[in-house]
């Protein structure tokens, strides 16, 4: 496993660690697409999950990939700035990214360069704002009173 991933760290500047049952690969955003091709080459043929986390000053993209042949899981994480966030789309590597990236665009407002069909998916097209961002402010939302 480790020797498979060594090229990622040497060529693409990835930081590799382990957490629970998965390898965590932190990679600079500009190398994401190349890393994805590399991972698919190794045998990570399934893209399970695409999501983002709002860390305050920037966003963290989280991809979860699975390899059936190596029977291992990996997280690919990359950070992108909050201003005009853009990251390259992985649709050409794993078609499964298509809808999931649309969902991230819909809820976080992160644009995916090279995505074939970048539209909102869950919310209506004319919806204002990006709901899952921490600074999302909708006057219609009623905050739950703190009981605990």
């Amino acid at each position: 496993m480790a020797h498979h991933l060594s090229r990622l760290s040497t060529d693409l500047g990835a930081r590799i660690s382990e957490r629970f049952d998965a390898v965590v690969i932190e990679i600079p955003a500009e190398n994401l697409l190349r890393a994805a091709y590399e991972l698919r080459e190794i045998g990570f043929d399934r893209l399970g999950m695409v999501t983002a986390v709002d860390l305050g000053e920037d966003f963290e993209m989280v991809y979860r990939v699975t390899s059936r042949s190596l029977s291992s899981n990996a997280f690919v994480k990359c950070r992108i700035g909050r201003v005009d966030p853009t990251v390259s789309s992985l649709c050409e590597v794993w078609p499964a990214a298509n809808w999931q990236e649309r969902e991230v665009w819909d809820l976080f407002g992160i644009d995916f360069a090279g995505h074939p069909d970048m539209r909102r998916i869950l919310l209506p097209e004319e919806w204002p704002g990006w709901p899952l961002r921490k600074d999302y402010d909708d006057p219609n939302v009623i905050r739950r009173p703190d009981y605990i």
Partner: protein
Amino acid sequence: MALVDRIGAALGRTPGGLILTSVDALVDWSRGQSLWAFPMGTACCAMELIAASFSKFDFDRLGTFPRPDPRHTDVMILAGTITEKMKPAVRRLYDQMPDPKWVVAMGNCTVSGGIFYYDTYSVVRGADTFLPVDVYIAGCPPRPESLQDAIVQLRELVKEESIAPGRRSERQVALPRPPAEGGDPE
């Protein structure tokens, strides 16, 4: 003027409304016994709505027959959460139903938003914000028996109706149909 209104107006002119009340009794019995349902199942409650019309609970005993076409139905059963995106569709389907029509709000989501009242940005807090709801059923989801009880209670409401335009209850005229309704390309 629709056929019903004409008949109703004519009967309403008879002395004492004697004929009108007996005709009304027959009509209200008929309407109450044959409340065909439009199953507007959006979420979890739709499962119980299906269960209510299937073997064990059998809606059909009450004469309630689910039809997928709003044009053929009398009572819209709102089962499940209504989101901002779904709201126009629900409203349009309600408008497509022919009068007289009733609405049953099944489950907490359609009563008030229920578990999705707080913190969410996309849920409509209660169907009565945009539809005239007649019967509310609490529960998340309510049991099928509650839904059948709602139909039985709705019959009481149906009894208040009259075929004479002047004697109709106010809720039937509360929401006029929007002028553009009718020709629906889908």
